[in-house]
């Protein structure tokens, strides 16, 4: 029992007066706790109700989108709206491109960023702090806005309106995060294990592959999923850098003013659903991923 617990426990106080205040304090704590539960429920409702509403909209027949007043609890469920969306012209190719762009972004940013993250975690060298500062300072800039000058470059290089150009932009967006996240993942793998492997005859490379990598893999996978979601969601650069080769968000955005309501609603659901699953998969890593990076 710690000093604090003793002070709190009723009946162990030095005087009657002390007892009374600790009983009052306990009552107060219980009240704060009850209020905290109420806050938790209200804040959850704030997050969940809009998700519920868009899901209901996506899974009721198309005409309900135009119906007024809408039934707050759905009376009939159907896949009509979703299949109308997925069968609309250009949606499936755009979906494919979105996945491709996210996959290339993921591959490129890991390939470029993970070695730097490893260097930050394991090596001491001149210029390390300068490099870390540089990476951190990229967050003071609205990176996607750079897609406008980049578009001009891409036209000159002949890769404008391609999936690779969007992926390159997304990599620029994701790379600083990849460096910081992978560095914090590698820091969490004990250096002793790596050194022990080297003492036992591993080369630095094989010690990395056989000892560090397996231990770092879950964290790296979580970081990858995060990068994937980042690219999947990004729309400004995607819509600037493409004309016909739209990604899914770019397609939905560029048709906003002309598309029928059910198309937009189902589109929002399509964009939102995979992200919810991904966040569920990496829920244990969320604090580690973002928290450590943001300090």
């Amino acid at each position, binding site marked *: 029992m710690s000093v604090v617990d003793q002070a709190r426990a009723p009946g162990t106080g030095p005087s009657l007066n002390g007892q009374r205040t600790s009983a009052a304090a306990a009552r107060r704590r219980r009240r704060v706790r009850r209020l905290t539960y109420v806050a938790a429920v209200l804040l959850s409702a704030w997050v969940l109700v809009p998700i519920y509403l868009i899901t209901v909209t996506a899974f009721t027949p198309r005409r309900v989108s135009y119906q007024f007043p809408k039934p707050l609890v759905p009376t009939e469920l159907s896949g009509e709206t979703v299949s109308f969306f997925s069968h609309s012209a250009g949606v499936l190719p755009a979906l494919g491109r979105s996945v491709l762009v996210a996959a290339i972004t993921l591959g490129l940013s890991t390939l470029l960023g993970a070695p730097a993250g490893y260097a930050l975690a394991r090596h001491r060298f001149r210029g390390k702090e300068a490099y870390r500062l540089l990476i951190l300072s990229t967050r003071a800039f609205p990176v996607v*806005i750079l897609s406008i000058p980049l578009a001009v470059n891409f036209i000159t290089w002949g890769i404008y309106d391609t999936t690779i150009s969007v992926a390159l932009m997304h990599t620029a967006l994701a790379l600083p995060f990849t460096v910081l996240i992978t560095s914090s993942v590698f820091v969490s793998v004990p250096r002793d294990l790596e050194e022990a492997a080297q003492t036992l005859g591993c080369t630095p490379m094989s010690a990395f592959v056989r000892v560090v990598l397996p231990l770092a893999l879950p964290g790296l996978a979580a970081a990858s999923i995060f990068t994937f979601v980042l690219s999947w969601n990004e729309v400004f650069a995607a819509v600037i850098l493409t004309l016909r080769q739209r990604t899914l968000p770019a397609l939905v955005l560029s048709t906003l003013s002309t598309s029928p309501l059910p198309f937009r609603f189902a589109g929002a659901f399509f964009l939102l659903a995979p992200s919810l699953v991904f966040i569920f998969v990496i829920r244990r890593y969320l604090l580690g991923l973002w*928290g450590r990076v943001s300090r």
Partner: protein
Amino acid sequence: MAGAAVTRGRGGRLGWTPYLLLAPSLVFLAVFFATPMFQAFGLAFQAPGGGYGLDAVQRMFGDVRFGRALTTTLVLVVAIIPIQFALAMGMALVVNARLKGTDLWLYIFALPLGISELAAGIVWFSIFTEQGWLNSFLEQAGLIERPYVFLSYQHPALLILAIVLAEAWRATAIIMIILIAGLQGIPRDYTEAADVFGADAWRRLRYVTLPLLKPTIRVALILRTILAFQAFATVLALAGSATNVLAGEAYRWYQTLREPRVAAAYASLILLLSVASTVLFLALIRTDEERLA
């Protein structure tokens, strides 16, 4: 051989290895981050026939939509931040209170982390649109007789409110995660000591937790402000052409009007505003180490 590698790694005398590991990321950022940043300004100050001039910048400032885009963006930044911080702080304190099912609360609060600007805009559009959920609810509750038009250029305040709500809904999660990480870095002894000395929950928050959380709050503020200056898809999905923001104007000048130079002028302005706000936050919110130094 292997032993030698370990010693060299420890002593930091490994020579070129760390630099080789950093090089790919540095080269990439030079080409796709640093260069376009300078190019944005170069493009904005390019004269139509070549050479340099103020033509594009003048067209940006002279555009009839410029004033509203700038004020809407600034109003959004100012309105979003306090609402979002209050919400995020509430969520962070709930998670940090270690209620039953902490993991579940955290997951629910963190859900919007995966929701895009565009999806959030459409979700709130489905709520606020004329035949939307809010009107349906109000009608069924008997509060209105016919649907109210929330999203119209005739009600700029309501438009802004809708955008603020959508943005707060989507981007509070990231602030919350940063704040929780900061809260977990504060030793429990501090708040417990304050408790022993009779400070109630509010005083513990105001005089112990918040001051210790300052560096974290600063990071979150900078991050959120930069995001707000880029606000784009949420605005477009909710308001259409009923209102406009700086990033939306950049998009319009680039894609619809085919004027990359004016679009670059908008991009440069957004860059300048973001950097200025970062500098401002760094100057205004001093952490204790800096004050001692």
